[in-house]
């Protein structure tokens, strides 16, 4: 059984839900990312969503766009991200899901990426611009090397289609809470609970909810219906607020920032 399935099984037994925080690999540098992930795990993160930066992140709002840009400006690339995952898995067993866009994976080579990612310990992938109809090639590679390819379902997706997608999704299904791009929102859509319930009724895999989720209250509300909650932009904002320029104008994440981030993740976890 893969690590993601194990996590959901354990949580189900404990009657808990998964907290899945997001962080962009290499923002502001890979060393910071490693420390951030370890801190998030220490504070109770159940699965880590690790962003693979792309130059044209068209499903992302300003916060994650800027984060990806900082990482790319720092020179991070796919091979280094896989090294980071390898290094992390020497310290933690928490599943790591790589989230990104299709082109960097395509250019790495689908089969090669699947092999190297599996070797490094990548447990799953979420590819924002790879819908069901285009996913056969990557899906086959991922399956071959034991990587869960996690699909997204949106509020605009008709239920029949959502069912088809859920059946192809491995590990869990990512429900996009709002029609739109990533970004912290104060209010979540009114129909969200009903939509998640409908989706859970047709999905053979657990359903995790993301996009817009930014507060412990959101996590509390969503944990009542979903199997997991994904928090991205609200975490990246803490990183953005706590950047320091060190010598040579390289950016680093401050110690106070790490404390703030740890505290925030801990408060989110309490609500699952």
């Amino acid at each position, binding site marked *: 059984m893969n690590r993601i399935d194990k996590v959901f099984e354990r949580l189900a037994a404990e009657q808990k839900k998964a907290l899945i925080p997001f962080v962009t690999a290499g923002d502001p540098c890979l060393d910071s990312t490693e420390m951030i992930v370890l801190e998030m795990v220490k504070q109770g993160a159940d699965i880590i969503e690790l962003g693979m930066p792309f130059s044209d992140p068209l499903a992302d709002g300003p916060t994650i766009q800027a984060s990806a840009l900082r990482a790319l400006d720092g020179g991070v690339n796919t091979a280094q991200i896989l090294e980071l995952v390898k290094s992390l898995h020497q310290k933690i067993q928490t599943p790591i899901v790589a989230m990104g866009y299709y082109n960097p994976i395509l250019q790495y080579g689908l089969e090669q990426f699947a092999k190297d990612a599996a070797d490094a310990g990548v447990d799953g992938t979420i590819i924002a611009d790879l819908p069901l109809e285009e996913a056969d090639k990557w899906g086959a590679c991922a399956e071959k090397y034991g990587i869960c390819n996690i699909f997204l379902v949106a509020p*605009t997706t008709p239920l029949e289609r959502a069912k088809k997608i859920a059946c192809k999704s491995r590990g869990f299904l990512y429900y996009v809470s709002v029609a739109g791009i990533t970004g912290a929102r104060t209010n979540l859509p009114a129909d969200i609970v009903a939509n998640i319930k409908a989706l859970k009724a047709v999905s053979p895999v657990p359903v995790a909810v993301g996009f817009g989720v930014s507060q412990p209250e959101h996590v509390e509300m969503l944990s009542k219906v979903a199997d997991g909650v994904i928090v991205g932009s609200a975490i990246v904002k803490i990183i953005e607020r706590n950047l320091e320029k060190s010598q040579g104008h390289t950016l680093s994440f401050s110690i106070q920032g790490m404390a703030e981030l740890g505290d925030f993740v801990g408060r989110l976890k309490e609500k699952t």
Partner: protein
Amino acid sequence: MTIHHKKESEYVGNVPDRRGHFGDYGGRFVPETLMPALNELEKAYKAIKKDKTFIQEFSYILGDYVGRPTPLYEAKRLAEAVGGRIKVFLKREDLTHTGAHKINNTIGQALLARRMGKRRIIAETGAGQHGVATATACALFGLKCEVYMGVKDTVRQAMNVYRMELAGAKVLPVSSGTQTLKDATNEAIRDWVTNVKDTHYIIGSVVGPHPYPMMVRDFQSVIGQEIKKQIKKQAGQMPDVILACVGGGSNAMGAFFPFVRETDVRLIGVEAAGEGLDTDHHSATLTVGRPGVLHGKLTYLLQDRWGQIKGAHSLAPGLDYPGVGPEHSFLKDVQRAEYVCVDDEEALEGFMLLCEIEGIIPALESAHAVAYLRKLAPMLKDGSVVVINLSGRGDKDVATVSDILRSRKPGA
């Protein structure tokens, strides 16, 4: 990645397939949120394609409002200037209402949006020609219009910003990334993902996810259909060569498509070599790019080894795009069309040449096709017939060109 080469005859006229693939290219690489909208659009488009009322209304507007058919003009002095052994015809898309071929597509898509009950239109624009054409169509049909445009382009094409505003559109400057067409397209897609319920996105070229490359090609094919009729009458034969500039590639696709099965007709797309192919400042996607995925489609792209998209450059903002329509990628691989490039300096010379000897100010984009004629002419047989698709007029570029020329004057 490997692209399988198959004989052109297996494909030509049969693309895209059901899922919008042109051979290995095209497709639908978008966030799930947009998939239902793309399905809906595809269905609506297929319905209007056979709908007599739609076709009648579209033709009527193209005729009485856009000014079609546009003339096919024999440019005898231009032919003489390049050696005098060949015949050169200019397809005068520059004479359409709003001054570029872009209007053919925006009228079609705005009519379609109205049928689909979408009251809000968004668009991206580089040179501003597509933005102006979209704003115009929206004014004509009473639709709300917002246009994303890179900050850099709003400066160098300021006149077009004002034209859009006059037509009642809102221009939204994009300051992220390259501040040109690539990032304007990202922003337009982000808007569409957010407002997909009441909004139609009028993409301006044969790019984006299926059905856009097919639909825009079809709306632009009126160019090639007219060329076919006109050239028979005026030259008594099919053209030997059709030349068109390629950024995203909609004017070229429109001119090429009705000739794709006429394999004796050479189809040549001219890309922008910008400051030179040995620099990072060019837009020669098909010439030196590699296949990859951007803005919903698999196609040739300018990118680094890790798949990050590179900024493009051209003196002509309409060519300043690191991708290209997937059907061009396909036509290149099956060797049905040839793709070449000319640099900023050559394009400027082409621009000047046409102004001076024909009294026609071409868009800097179209000037690339004119410039390539000078390279091509010596290699053609006597009596060859060449058609250049003069995709737009150059009023928008007059300030750019005059700045360059002034900076070169001694003492400037």
